[in-house]
């Protein structure tokens, strides 16, 4: 028996829930040497910026317990080159593509949306809100509900109605639900969480920060419990909103935790650095776990851990009913 792994990001159907996490699969070409990208639920690009960006100085990464820090600084060739070379490559192959964008002002996000509005091959637009807001002393958009909402409202008004706008949230906030709600109220069709919490490591030989940029984003298994918690809280508060769960997913079991917490799709980031085939493996493992527990459809597991204690899972109730004569 095979499990129906289809999922919906707003009205967009994905063949399975596993996507690459923004910034962890570049624009897909590198991974395509390892496997057929059509097997992904969707490919999420690195965050595209207006101008080309050289990023941060090296060292850009440091390993931490069950995690790593990165300070890449959104290195990339900018929207022109993306539209000219990278997006067409994906579009021609018909690969479901979630385009991530990053900006420093509302105007910059809006301009990026404008450029992408008519580009073929944009399955969904993910708005990376973990960028410093240049109009608010560099305060990160994702840490301020109203700034995040402003970006989302503008981007939503620009993008074609049939391209879902996904707001990507960061966990470094006192109240993730408040930020989530602000984004949904501003028109976000879905939410993605979590981006990297800010961390730091110090090189005890050099007696200096390990990263040239001093602080960096923490990713990997260490942050899985934060991701599960954020997805749980937001799904509890906004049960109708599709969530992409991201953060520390290394196995099907990790993905399953996020699904049970309320995610209908799951992003895989750091795991790709360890295993280029991680998305395929995780998808298979997730399917196996669902099958072993009697699920016929992924959709039946989404948010299932929220059911009141004592109540049997619905998918099993159905089974029982069917077997009663």
């Amino acid at each position: 028996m095979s499990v129906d792994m289809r999922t919906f990001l707003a009205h967009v159907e994905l063949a399975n829930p596993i996507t690459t996490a923004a910034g962890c699969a570049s624009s897909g070409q590198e991974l395509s040497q390892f496997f057929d990208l059509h097997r992904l639920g969707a490919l999420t690009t690195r965050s595209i910026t207006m101008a080309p960006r050289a990023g941060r100085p090296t060292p850009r990464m440091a390993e931490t317990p069950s995690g790593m820090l990165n300070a890449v600084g959104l290195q990339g060739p900018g929207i022109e080159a993306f539209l000219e070379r990278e997006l067409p490559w994906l579009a021609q192959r018909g690969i479901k593509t979630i385009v991530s964008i990053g900006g420093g002002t509302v105007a910059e996000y809006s301009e990026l949306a404008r450029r992408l509005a008519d580009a073929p091959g944009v399955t969904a637009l993910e708005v990376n809100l973990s960028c410093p807001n240049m109009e608010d002393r560099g305060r990160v958009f994702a840490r301020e509900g109203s700034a995040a909402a402003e970006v989302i409202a503008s981007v939503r008004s620009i993008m074609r109605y049939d391209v879902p706008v996904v707001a990507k949230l960061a966990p470094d906030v006192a109240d993730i639900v408040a930020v989530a709600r602000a984004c949904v109220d501003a028109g976000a069709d879905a939410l993605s969480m979590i981006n990297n919490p800010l961390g730091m490591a110090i090189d005890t030989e050099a007696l200096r920060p390990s990263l040239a940029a001093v602080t960096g984003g923490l990713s990997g298994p260490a942050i899985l419990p934060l991701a599960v918690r954020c997805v749980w809280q937001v799904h509890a508060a906004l049960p109708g909103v599709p969530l992409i769960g991201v953060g520390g997913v290394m196995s099907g079991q990790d993905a399953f935790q996020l699904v049970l917490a309320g995610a209908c799709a799951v992003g895989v980031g750091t795991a790709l650095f360890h295993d280029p085939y991680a998305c395929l493996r995780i998808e298979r493992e997730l399917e196996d776990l669902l099958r072993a527990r009697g699920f016929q459809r992924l959709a039946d597991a989404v948010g299932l851990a929220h059911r009141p204690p004592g109540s049997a899972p619905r998918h099993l109730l159905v089974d029982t009913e069917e077997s009663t004569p």
Partner: protein
Amino acid sequence: MQVTGTVLTTRRVDAYHALTVVAPGIAERYRPGHFVSVAVGGPHTSMVTRRALSIHDVKADYGGTVELVFTTRGPGTAWLAERRARDTLDLVGPLGRPFPLPRDPAHCVLVGSEYGSAVLFPLADALLARGCRVDFVLGGAGAERVFGAMRARRMATTTTLTTEDGSLGLRGKVTDALPSVIADTRADVVYACAPMETLRSVTAVAMEFDIPVQAAVEESMACGIGVCMTCVLPVIGDDGATRMVRACVEGPVFRGERVRFEDVGTIPFDALGAPGGGARHVS
């Protein structure tokens, strides 16, 4: 490709550890200069990133084996040093851009420092097979850290050894010996694998002699396959523009003259997309 290989043999070579791993798919695709990335720590480890190691040797036994030579630095290489025959090792490779070989027979000087020398031996084999002349300059902090001196002597026309403490060969660095080797051998090209500082000096020497240098660099790598953007360094392109390029897929072998060694660890102000170039508004 990803391969779960079995460790065939482990041995100490002077100050280094050497592991031979059965990895047919990797051995088959291998060319000199390639590296692999190795998962470390075993199941449920807290170490999430792979370790990049050059391929020192490839043999046809057991369908294909690769040999890795390494020094213990942190917990990952310490774990590798504890592997024993019959343990399994998870490798991804072959990775990177290998050493380009000269079309016609040429005089080649191969410069290696510490474990960096390891990657030069299969290169020397390939060069000799093409009728090139090969001369080695190998160095290290002390005698036991000069890798492969014997093997170099067997295959090269000349082998020059340097140690910083003078315990073997000339006292000094490989770059101290390099000018006279280039001059004596009338070298056409230099191949080098060493720490960044040494590569910088090697490149400077080669440029003085106006010959090309192919330098294999070492940058901290999280993925090794070009998706994480952590391994970049400033390299000048054909168009004269400096870009922050990935050592793992665009390297690790670069034309030395193209690498802005003095600017490694920075974003040169004139690099494409450098802050100030109009993109200063995002981070």
